[in-house]
């Protein structure tokens, strides 16, 4: 049975109101080296509070995806501590952690592997062993949240890129996660779909950490930005301030808008 080292908290207090003082995510001194010897993370420390929306930016190869994969234990074996809602991310906790951290991958094709939209969104709840009634409820809820309720019976394979992105997000929303972790959510979308996604993410009342190269989206959506380069966090602060610092941005392969 799961080991949980501390009482499990939630981003909602006992009255169902948001609890902004709770730490949703806590990373301390995380180091990671790939088996081939490539050092990808060199001491990452990061805290995200409930309800925050944080952008993670940096050049290709900075280690953003590597960090995100750690957050629900898909990669491990490095040094350092990670806690999700107070629970340490260690092997025995993983089955629980994975329901709390909703990881949305860059390419929705990787995430949508069932024939129909319904089955894709139901995968998480079904794997959690929820009763069928509850699964249906959750699928309906998640699809409604992303505005795809009428798509339940469509084949995922034939959706447009923008629709796939939305369904991919629904596949983790159906697990009622506390934190949504997104890897390059706006990649490959045309301007209209991108705008729709930004509006969707803004409206979702959930803690969010997203890696991206899309500085326009960072400006429009994320109040806080973390800049990574070469496996380190080189800046962390309010987006407005960081986006003004041309030198900082240019030193890390980013562009001032």
């Amino acid at each position, binding site marked *: 049975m799961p080991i949980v080292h501390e009482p499990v908290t939630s981003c909602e207090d006992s009255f169902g109101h948001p609890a902004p003082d709770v730490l949703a995510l806590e990373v301390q001194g995380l180091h990671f080296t790939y088996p081939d010897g490539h050092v990808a993370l060199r001491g990452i420390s990061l805290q995200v509070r409930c309800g925050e929306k944080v952008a993670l930016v940096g050049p290709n190869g900075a280690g953003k995806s590597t960090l995100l994969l750690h957050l629900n234990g898909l990669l491990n074996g490095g040094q350092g501590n990670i806690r999700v809602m107070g629970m340490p991310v260690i092997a025995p906790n993983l089955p629980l952690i994975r329901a709390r951290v909703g*990881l949305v991958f860059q390419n929705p094709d*990787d995430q949508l592997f069932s024939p129909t939209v319904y089955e894709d969104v139901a995968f998480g709840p079904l*794997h959690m062993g929820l009763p069928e009634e509850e699964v249906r409820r959750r699928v309906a809820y998640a699809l409604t949240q992303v505005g795809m309720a009428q798509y339940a019976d469509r084949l995922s394979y034939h959706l447009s890129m923008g629709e796939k992105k939305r369904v991919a997000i629904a596949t983790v929303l159906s697990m009622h996660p506390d934190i949504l972790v997104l890897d390059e959510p706006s990649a490959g979308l045309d301007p209209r779909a991108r705008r729709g996604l930004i509006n969707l993410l803004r409206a979702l009342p959930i803690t969010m950490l997203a890696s991206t190269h899309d500085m326009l989206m960072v400006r429009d959506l994320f109040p806080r930005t973390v800049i990574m380069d070469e496996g380190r966090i080189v800046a962390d602060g309010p987006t407005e301030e960081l986006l003004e610092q041309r030198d900082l941005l240019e030193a890390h392969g980013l562009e001032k808008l």
Partner: protein
Amino acid sequence: MLEGLLDRYLNRASFVHDLDPRVKVVNAFLFILSVVLLPDGAWIAYFLGWCAILAVALLARVGAGFVLRGSLVAFPFALVAITLVFTLPGRPLLTLQLGTWELSASDAGLVRFTSILARSWLSVQAAILLTATTRSPDLLHALRHLRVPGLLVTILSFMIRYLYVLVDETTRLLRARQARSAWSAQGKGGGSLFWRARVAGNMTGQLFLRSLERSDRIYNAMLARGFRSQFVTINPHMMRRRDWVAGGLGICVLLLLQFVAHFVS
């Protein structure tokens, strides 16, 4: 995660790396052939064969440890042969009492089992040395010039190119599934066996369709650059003196092995 597993080539500058790949392919193949032909219990010849492997590994600067570690892949298969120890008739060495049954290991069985293991182990190491010192494009060039049908080699070269791409794609698929494989706090979860199998099948089917579409796009990209039914390549390899010498030397070693095995011990 799989990159290290996939790429067996060790990028070093060495005499062995520099040899014509044809020489390496032919020598590796003949070495394996010759090892398989060694009789049971030819310990000296096995040892000499291993010395040859070590020498090449040192010359190639890949390290004996690398070769050794890789060679363990054949180990599980030994289970198949271990029964020989108990079934071949011979002088009993050791008798185990298992319940009411008596197991006796015979000397002949042990010799045969160890010999099979030794030959297999030597062969695997030769194959590892080949891939550790020869990049896959060169390996394919060698095959092409050794008269393996060109069509097959071309297909193999496409396969190897897209192997990496598809293995990455699959890794991401597996990760995406794993990321959502949560259990409820009550300790329930996992789904039924059939459901899990169905999900795996869905993933396979999806990967198939994506691959099929990719092959169409690749075909378009080939056409766009003037491909018309015939594949044209340039031969980048020339046999030099040292290639001939290395090849000849290798064959001498093999003959020596056979001589030792049959006439010395």
